[in-house]
């Protein structure tokens, strides 16, 4: 039982990272219908930001705290740039976007290899996060608790932004009826770019979180992008509730199964479970019904 609980907690923290990654994807996919394969490289950008910062700032704790907003800005800026340079020209051609962003993803990986070298690098976690606490026999590692808290904080912040701010209203309006938003005077292009900024920035934050549990490498993003897309597909597009539930469910399922079987078997079982689920609910857990002017 304790083992299952321990694995579940690990799963929850994996789910937390998946959630951070999937939030950005569900926003951009829901609002613009864009399948952004380069999203994983924004994770990488966030992780390398942490690494570079730790090289120049002494004190792992300080550099981690600075890395969070900085990674958000770096990854966010990359996302906004990608949107402005390429994606906005391809909004009517989703398949082309997929290919183009995949190409961008490969280029960014190569860029990372050229700059930082092909081997993985590592950061040191602050002392505070290397310990663990034990609650009722369950070991809660400090770094994983931190990641969980970080993800929940980001979900909370994003929820408040979407619900209460003018920007949030505009984003929701564009998701629900893009043409009507445009003819109501909303600069939908600018809203798209802002959404891309926020979504990519959250991937950068996920990258910072990942430096606490593993190595940093040029291909680290690709390991997560597929799982994150699964979260979006199962959770339903363009709303947060489904992503939150699905990310944690997938994380826990995966790591509990991994313990009782092997990594590969766990992956297969999770994928089969998803396929079965989508037969039953092709639209995902939750959906927004939308209509447009045309």
């Amino acid at each position, binding site marked *: 039982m304790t083992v299952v609980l321990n694995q579940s907690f690990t799963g929850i923290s994996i789910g937390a990272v998946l959630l951070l990654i999937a939030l950005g994807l569900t926003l951009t996919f829901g609002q613009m219908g864009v399948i952004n394969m380069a999203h994983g490289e924004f994770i990488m950008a966030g992780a390398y930001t942490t690494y570079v910062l730790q090289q120049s700032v002494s004190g792992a704790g300080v550099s981690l705290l600075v890395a969070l907003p900085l990674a958000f800005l770096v990854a966010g800026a990359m996302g906004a740039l990608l949107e402005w340079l390429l994606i906005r020209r391809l909004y009517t051609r989703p398949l082309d976007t997929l290919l183009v962003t995949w190409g961008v993803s490969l280029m960014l990986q190569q860029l990372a290899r050229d700059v930082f070298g092909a081997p993985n690098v590592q950061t040191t976690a602050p002392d505070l996060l290397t310990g663990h606490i034990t609650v009722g026999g369950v070991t809660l590692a400090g770094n994983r608790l931190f990641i969980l808290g970080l993800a929940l904080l980001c979900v909370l912040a994003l929820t408040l932004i979407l619900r209460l701010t003018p920007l949030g209203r*505009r984003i929701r309006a564009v998701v629900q*009826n893009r043409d009507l*938003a445009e*003819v*109501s*005077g909303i600069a939908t292009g600018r809203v798209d770019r802002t959404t891309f900024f926020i979504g990519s920035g959250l991937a950068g934050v996920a990258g910072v979180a990942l430096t606490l549990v593993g190595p940093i490498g040029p291909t680290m993003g690709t390991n997560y992008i597929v799982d994150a897309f699964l979260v979006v597909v199962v959770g339903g597009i363009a709303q947060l509730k489904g992503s939150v539930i699905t990310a944690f469910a997938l994380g826990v399922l995966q790591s509990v199964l991994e313990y009782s079987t092997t990594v590969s078997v766990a992956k297969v079982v999770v994928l089969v479970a998803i396929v079965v689920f989508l037969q039953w609910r092709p639209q995902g857990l939750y959906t927004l019904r939308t209509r447009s002017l045309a």
Partner: protein
Amino acid sequence: MLQIQSVRAGYDRTTVLHGVTVEVPEDGVAAVLGHNGAGKSTLLRTVMGIVPASAGTVLLDGEDITRLAPHRRVARGVAYVPQGQQSFPHLTTAENLQLVADGRPDGREAVAEALDLFPVLRELSGRRAGLLSGGQRQQLAIARALITRPRLLLLDEPTEGIQPSVVAEIEETVLALTRRGGLSVLLVEQHVGFAMRAARRYYVLEAGRVTSSGDGGAEAEGTVRAALSV
């Protein structure tokens, strides 16, 4: 105040408007009448910029707006109430209005004025727009358009598919708005009676061409009905 000059427009490979010329008088209503598929809605969409004009020009107070993005036309004082009582279904009534008022220095007063015009919306402020009746959603749509303080209002069949009790209210409000001054209206309508009462100029559209036009007013109703029945 609005001049649509020899505009051609359509979708993909089909041309819907074959050189349409329509003029909206200053502080007056121009009504566009015609059967389904004549191109009335496409004309409004072209004026708004959702459908690009492949030829011809759209002038707003002399300024060429033919190539402007829709939201920039809104900034220049054009507002549009599309067909089918459209709203942002998952936003509340209040959010639907606030969305348009955001960033406007006069936003608060504009919302208050719009709510005075349609008091029923005040009671529905917390309800999601998707749950409103068709008539309520149409009132919301008109209110939303007015918050941008337009000089030109484009109305696409404002009373179509709406319960009769609300139709009268909407018609009255539209007439009152045009009498208040400072607002010109391009009205697309199937109800000839209402359109002709409101209109200073009328245009009959058939298969993407203006086949007859003239001065509005109830006395011209017979002429228009005859033109439409051909």
